[in-house]
């Protein structure tokens, strides 16, 4: 049974190899089947594992081989399936499968070899993501961590002919690397202090953390880990890559930049919850960064006109939520939100993909409108997704978001206030998007209108499944106050420390729910009223312009980091290297040449002069003899 653990990542790996190597010889359908089939197989295995875990508890660590063994440090290539990872396995493989399925249709216009490349990358991504969550130590997690970053890079730049896509891909990778450096330093710190990177076991990090780590160590390790999470999960200040990452194909955005990869940071912190629980500073930092990011991204999302950009900022915002949850100690809530978010955000992205597909790669919502009739399934599912993200009960988003908000309130009402405001904004911009896209009248070209059609079944089926999940997914975490048992909470209890809740009174809690739902409902109503009839078609002005331009953060980064760095690099290259160091080296040569020219002038060709030099030399020798003591002392000083 436990050997099944290997199979989970193995299937995608095989899929990657077959599709990658055979991309020129395999037919498209074969590629699609292999690609999706590998993930399906993986999903089935994950299901089996999940139930195994659910029924019998965590599966013992499975060691494949010793990865690195330098006596003082042993790092095993080992997998660990516990409650947390089994849940993530399901999310990854499940949603992954749906998106693969969706992709078979969505990417059908590609040439076979690029089609094969696409599925190979996608399989590789799933493989890396599985490594990330399966790894039984930080190094394996880091391997997956960098692996998903790579796949993200490859997939964002999938259409490599377009240079701006390439820049976006590079930006994503480099920003991730900044985070990775933090992660890496954290790992080193752990190694230096604890001599191990394993999570569990008696020798593991978590078991020894309390005893061997000072509070300074813990704070630094957790903050460094969080820096890693910032990069991967697009938090301030490392979030700017994610909106740009929308350059990739839409299913990629759905899978990587919404459902799975970006939640790796959440997973990592949830995984390290033992450490985080030991450091209040780090917890607060996580919460504040999360909160600020959530609000900040939400404001930007209000004024975006690219359908995917809106979703991207929404993702950033929602990730901020999750970090808020982690920061206030609601680990379960965050994981819960990861799950529900995966459902509805994947749904929204896929829905957006369906729209884009129908509109022939038109992404500007100002050129859409009135798609309700032409794309019925897409419309319904998209609406459900919007409701879910807006936190309208009983859709899944409501439960997860509510849990985080409740915990935030318990922590500090201010957190809760900002959180609720963000929730309102979320509802607003999502329904702005919905209204502008699906309601009103069609504003695109005639040609586009003529070709509008509902997507094929391979695309709609995943939409429907995800819609169902978005609607129902919340019920595994119904809080006790609403008469539920919060199954998820119980399931995850062995791995996630339960925060010491300042118990909120039931009345308060109901009130909180009420406020947030009411706010969301009002925002929805305003958005629909405002945008269904008169969508905002002109460029924004004033404050709106500031938001539309994303607070000019990209420009700021360019000015503060990129340009100075470039200037320094040019300075090094042209001045220091050429004139400084190389100049010095060449200067020695030039000096020798110069002295050569001067010295040979002594060789005047005149006998008298030569003899004069000889006589003078003898005189000097005699003088040296006379002043021997003095000269010797100088000599000795020089040479000793």
């Amino acid at each position: 049974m436990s050997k099944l653990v290997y199979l989970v990542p193995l299937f995608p790996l095989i899929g990657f190899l077959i599709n990658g190597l055979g991309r020129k010889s395999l037919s498209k359908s074969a590629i699609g089947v292999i690609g999706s089939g590998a993930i399906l197989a993986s999903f089935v295995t994950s299901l089996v594992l999940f139930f195994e875990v659910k029924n019998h508890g965590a599966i013992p660590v499975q060691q494949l081989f010793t990865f690195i063994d330098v006596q003082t440090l042993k790092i095993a290539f080992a997998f660990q399936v516990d409650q947390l990872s089994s849940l993530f396995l399901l999310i990854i493989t499940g949603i992954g499968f749906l998106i693969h399925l969706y992709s078979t249709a969505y990417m059908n216009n590609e040439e076979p070899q690029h089609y094969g490349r696409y599925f190979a990358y996608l399989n590789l991504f799933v493989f890396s993501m599985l490594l990330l969550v399966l790894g039984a130590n930080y190094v394996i997690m880091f391997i997956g961590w960098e692996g998903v970053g790579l796949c993200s890079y490859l997939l964002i730049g999938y259409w490599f002919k377009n240079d701006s896509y390439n820049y976006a891909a590079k930006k994503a990778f480099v920003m991730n690397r900044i985070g990775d450096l933090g992660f890496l330093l954290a790992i080193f710190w752990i190694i230096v202090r604890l001599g191990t990177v394993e999570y569990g076991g008696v020798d593991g990090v978590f078991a020894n953390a309390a005893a061997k780590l000072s509070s300074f160590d813990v704070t630094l390790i957790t903050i460094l880990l969080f820096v890693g999470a910032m990069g991967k999960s697009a938090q301030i200040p490392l979030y700017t890559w994610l909106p740009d990452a929308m350059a990739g194909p839409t299913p990629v955005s759905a899978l990587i930049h919404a459902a799975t990869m970006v939640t790796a940071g959440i997973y990592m912190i949830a995984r390290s919850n033992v450490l985080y629980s030991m450091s209040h500073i780090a917890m607060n930092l996580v919460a504040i960064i999360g909160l600020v990011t959530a609000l900040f991204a939400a404001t930007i999302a209000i004024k975006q006109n690219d359908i995917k950009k809106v979703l991207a900022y929404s993702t950033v915002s929602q990730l901020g939520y999750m970090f808020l949850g982690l920061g206030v100690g609601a680990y379960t809530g965050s994981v819960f939100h990861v799950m529900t978010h995966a459902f509805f955000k994947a749904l929204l992205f896929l829905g957006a993909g369906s729209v884009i597909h129908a509109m022939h790669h038109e992404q500007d919502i100002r050129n859409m409108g009135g798609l309700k009739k032409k794309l019925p399934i897409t419309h319904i599912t998209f609406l459900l997704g919007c409701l879910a993200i807006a936190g309208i009960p009983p859709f899944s988003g409501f439960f997860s978001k509510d849990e985080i908000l409740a915990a935030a309130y318990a922590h500090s009402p201010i957190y809760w206030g900002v959180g609720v405001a963000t929730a309102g904004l979320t509802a607003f911009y999502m329904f702005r998007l919905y209204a502008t896209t699906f309601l009103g009248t069609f504003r695109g070209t005639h040609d586009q209108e003529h070709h509008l059609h509902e997507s094929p079944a391979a695309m709609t089926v995943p939409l429907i499944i995800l819609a169902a999940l978005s609607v129902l997914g919340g019920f595994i975490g119904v809080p006790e106050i609403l008469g539920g048992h919060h199954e998820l909470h119980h399931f995850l209890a062995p791995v996630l420390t339960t925060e010491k809740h300042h118990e909120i009174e039931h009345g308060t809690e109901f009130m909180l729910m009420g406020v947030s739902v009411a706010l969301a409902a009002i925002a929805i109503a305003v958005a629909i009223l405002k945008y269904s009839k008169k969508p905002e078609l002109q460029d924004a002005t004033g404050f709106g312009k500031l938001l539309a331009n994303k607070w000019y953060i990209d420009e700021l980064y360019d000015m503060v980091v990129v340009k100075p760095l470039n200037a320094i690099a040019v300075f090094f290259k042209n001045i220091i290297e050429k004139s400084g160091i190389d100049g010095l080296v060449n200067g020695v040569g030039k000096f020798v040449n110069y002295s050569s020219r001067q010295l040979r002038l002594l060789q005047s060709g005149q006998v008298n002069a030569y003899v004069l030099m000889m006589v003078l030399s003898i005189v000097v020798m005699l003088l040296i003899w006379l002043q021997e003591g003095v000269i010797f002392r100088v000599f000795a000083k020089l040479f000793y």
Partner: protein
Amino acid sequence: MNAIILSALLGVVMMFSGIVLKSKPAIVSTALASLVLLLIGNLLETYGIFSIRVNTHDMLDFTKFGYFFNTLAIAATLLYVILSGKDVIKVGNYPADCFALIFFVLCGVSILSSFNNLLMMFIGIEIMSIPLYILTGADKKNLKSNEASLKYFLMGAFSTGLMLMGIALIYGASGSFGIEAVKLANAVPGGALPQAPILDVIGLMFVFASLLFKVSAAPFHFWTPDVYDGAPSVFTSFMSTIVKAAAFVAFIHLFENKATEMGNIWKMLMVLTIIATLLVGNITAVFQQSVKRMLAYSSIAQAGFMLFALYSRNDMAKEGILLYTVAYSVATVGIFAILIKMKDYTFDGYNGLAKTQPLLAACNTVFLLSLAGIPLTAGFFAKYWMLASVVKAGGAFAIWLVIIAVLFAAVSVYYYFRVIQSMYFKEGNAETTEISQGFKIGLLVMAAIILYVGINPDGLLQWFYL
């Protein structure tokens, strides 16, 4: 004694061969045969088989080292005549006399390798020098040769004067001309070393200066570039190799007096001289345009390295001088032999030699690498032995001296490799006079010697210690 007597006699034989033999090649053959005879004679004495015994009244002291050096000098001369003999007879109208003079020089060399008395040193140096004045001016129609000869002669005579003054002062201090009278110790006031008489020190200083002149060390080197440049190339080759090595042997022999420790004054003077020589030789060579003149400066630079033996005064130094003699003589003779064949003596004249004469270029490269002290050539071990001897001798300046020396060695790479660059990497059509097969074989043999010694210097030294 064999070498001294035989070389003098064979010199006379060569003199008369010019009258008897009418064909020039025959003269070369006679010279070769005589050299072989001389070599055999010397070897016989080395191994104690046959030697002419003369009571020298302690004027000469025949040592293994001396025999061995004679062998090397004679063998090098033999190689030299094999390669460049045909070019010797092209210079002037008295080919036989030139060979006779070469033999007389060898006589002087043999005296210098075995003198035990300042008088013998003086006579040896004169016997060696006077024929050189003549050889330098042998190309009588050539004004450069005239000039070189005059300069060489005047300065040589001047330095003889210096040496004699020195010898006189030494005699004044010690009452003897034996080399044991040469005392090096002269400590700083209050030091532990016994003070040598001032007259002795000053006298030795004059002798030192004069010998520095002979080995062309700075600041007594000024004659060297002009004379080497002006003299007929064949004789430059001879002068700058065998003769210079012999001067060094004399120099070291004189300063070797183990009974006395070297005073600080001498250490300082030597360090300064070595550095000055390396500086002048290497730096000035960098800017030369003529290969011949570059080689003249390079010979100054090499002298700087050989001077190390003087500083260290140990067994390694003597072995080093032997190795240096082989490495430097063979390589320089080879390079000059090739130079003589070139139509144009400038660096550009060598452009593209690798294409027109690949063998010459390859051998020339080996010789140049050896001069530059690149490993796997004899030159490396020659330099190595010198550096090692200094480190072994120790002392305050040793390590710095060695560091300075290697830095200059790196500079020397610059000008030696310019020739290699010209030959191999530059486009051109180097013109040479006709090259015979024998010449090529001779070059190959010399290159082989360089490489053999470069891989196994012990082979040479073992023979010495036999």
